[in-house]
């Protein structure tokens, strides 16, 4: 404790506590709880049975009440800790309840019926993870299909984004040609054309291309990201022109230069763009909602929102599928967040 707390609470110059230090730590700890708490709470909840979810006040861990099959009774009986008149407690199974008195039996010796006041007994509960919340949506609903659609859209869109954007960035950074600044201006201008402004005409274009109710209709409009071109171009500008000139001397074609020289050297920027693109495409919602109207084509995001909007929401399934939807993003967060945070801090783009 001593060393750890001194390390964590160390302050510049080893001065004594100042009120700003207290504010800092209250803010940080509060932030930790507020930022992670909701997602953690959701994850815990996703392992609860529907009965446990309906409970108020809720428990943090998923509990189920224990039951036991007792000789002489057809149905499994619920177990209780019952307080006996002599002050001891016994685990008893409830046979039936009449008014304020419960008729109970000892599971080990089911012959004798014990009468217990219902105020003197508490249900025996044990921690149990309702994993069927996860397996049922995959086996009985279409969620496996949605998961696959999401993965397909994310991977395909990211690959196309990387290729198309890097080609454009190569042209815009390593060639002098007429209309270069015009192309650059158009790309930057599209930064300010959000989907909500063009969704009606975009929908008609997608339909006339026959891409309505097709995953390609989701993928194609998203791949020419201006942000991607911008990030890659900035990076390619730092590649020395001499390398390219030398390759030209050796009779390399322009495509070879792009593929064998420029792309490998742009790897760090490509990695940043790939991470961004995966998160963007995985999280896309409004556009897939418009383009996909057949259930078997839904992505996870669309499927989740449709199921959660239904009249009798099956929260135990929704919660579990929300956790599944969160997993890739949490993985990106754990392993790659450093790239993203430095990338954003550097360019101010997201």
């Amino acid at each position: 404790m001593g060393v750890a707390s001194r390390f964590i609470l160390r302050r510049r110059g080893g001065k004594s506590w100042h009120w700003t230090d207290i504010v800092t730590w209250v803010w940080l700890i509060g932030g930790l709880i507020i930022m992670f708490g909701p997602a953690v709470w959701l994850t815990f909840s996703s392992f609860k049975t529907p009965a446990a979810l309906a409970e108020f006040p809720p428990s943090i861990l998923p509990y189920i009440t224990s039951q036991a099959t007792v000789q002489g009774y057809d149905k499994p009986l619920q177990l209780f800790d019952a307080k006996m008149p002599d002050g001891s407690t016994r685990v008893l199974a409830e046979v039936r309840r009449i008014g304020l008195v419960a008729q109970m039996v000892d599971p080990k010796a089911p012959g004798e019926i014990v009468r217990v006041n219902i105020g003197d007994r508490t249900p025996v509960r044990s921690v149990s993870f309702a994993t069927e919340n996860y397996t049922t949506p995959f086996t009985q609903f279409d969620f496996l299909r949605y998961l696959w659609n999401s993965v397909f859209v994310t991977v395909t869109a990211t690959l196309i984004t990387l290729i198309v954007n890097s080609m454009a960035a190569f042209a815009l950074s390593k060639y002098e040609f007429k209309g270069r600044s015009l192309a650059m201006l158009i790309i930057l201008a599209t930064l300010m054309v959000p989907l909500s402004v063009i969704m009606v005409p975009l929908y008609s274009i997608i339909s006339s291309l026959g891409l309505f109710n097709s995953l390609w209709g989701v993928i194609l409009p998203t791949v020419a990201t201006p942000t991607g071109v911008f990030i890659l171009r900035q990076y390619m500008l730092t590649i020395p022109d001499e390398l390219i000139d030398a390759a030209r001397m050796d009779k390399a074609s322009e495509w070879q230069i792009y593929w064998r020289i420029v792309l490998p050297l742009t790897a760090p920027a490509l990695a940043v763009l790939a991470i961004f693109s995966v998160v963007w495409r995985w999280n896309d919602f409004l556009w897939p909602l418009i383009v996909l109207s057949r259930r078997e084509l839904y992505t996870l995001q669309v499927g989740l929102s449709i199921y959660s909007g239904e009249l009798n929401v099956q929260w135990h399934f929704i919660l579990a599928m929300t956790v599944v939807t969160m997993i890739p993003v949490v993985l990106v967060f754990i392993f790659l967040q450093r790239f993203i945070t430095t990338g954003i801090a550097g360019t101010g783009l997201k």
Partner: protein
Amino acid sequence: MSTTSLTDRLGSLLMAPVHLLMRIIDIPLRAVQKATGIGGMATVFLAPNMLIFGIFVLLPLVINFVYSMTGGTAFFLSERNFVGAEQYQRLFTCTNYLDPMSCQEDAFWAAVGNTFWFVILQVALMICVSLITALILNRDLAARSFWRAVFFFPVLLSPVVVGLIWKWILQRQGLLNFGLYQFGIEPYTWLTDRNWTFIATIGVSIWAHMGLYTLILLAGLQAIPKDLYEAAEMDGTKPARVFRRITLPLLAPNLLVVVVLALIKAVQIFDEVYVLTGGGPGTSTLYLTQYIYETGFASALRNPGLAAAASILMGLVLVVLTLIQLGIGQRGEKKGKR
């Protein structure tokens, strides 16, 4: 040693088909290069990106104006009839201009009003929270990158997940009621109350996005030269004065960029609110993007022309905001050069 060579070999095995593909692509492109010369290849490299841009961004942008001047429920332009400025007129027809509810398209004006208040409150609160967080993260902290990551976490979550997480917390048996119950407050159905849903959408969107702005502000704070603070400390300047005289002026360009960026995003709010409240109860959390979406696609009385007209009005607001941002950026660049 052996493991790296194994992964190397595996990698080259996986890359072999890609290399082959690139070689095949190279054959026709060499022919093109011979015909157009090296300079012509720039067009080839630019073409796919610009083609996709043209079809899916520029073309819709132009068509949108045509759409807003046509009527009917059909989506194909050829099946739509020209109505001139009728859609715009419809949006602006009101019996009493001081009362939005007397307008023909009262939902549109409800959405405009909601969006206006949402943008003002959300951006103001979020920038305050982000600035405080950035100032705290800029202190001499142990494990700063960990704390920075903590506030960034929700930014990566999908809006649908954000909406569901908070729907789960704000519902009757949810965590919020549980917390209040500890203080003896009775459970409340927050998401059926007009005022509370509006506040909830603001709070949830701040929760989801503040990490991004904190990050940009923190980068700005770290760019302020340390010796300025040291000099101020030597002169015995009070912290409040240091903040007003050093931190705030030097952070101002960053702060302006962040404010405009946040404004642009806030005007377009949709996903998390749609999942959290569905725009309700009533029209209390109906925002502009949802109005456009529902008018254009979802409602039984859909009217793409009206949706297009509304989206153009929204686009105008965004253009103004973006121009402000570009103006700030240029001024910042000039300053940097000097």
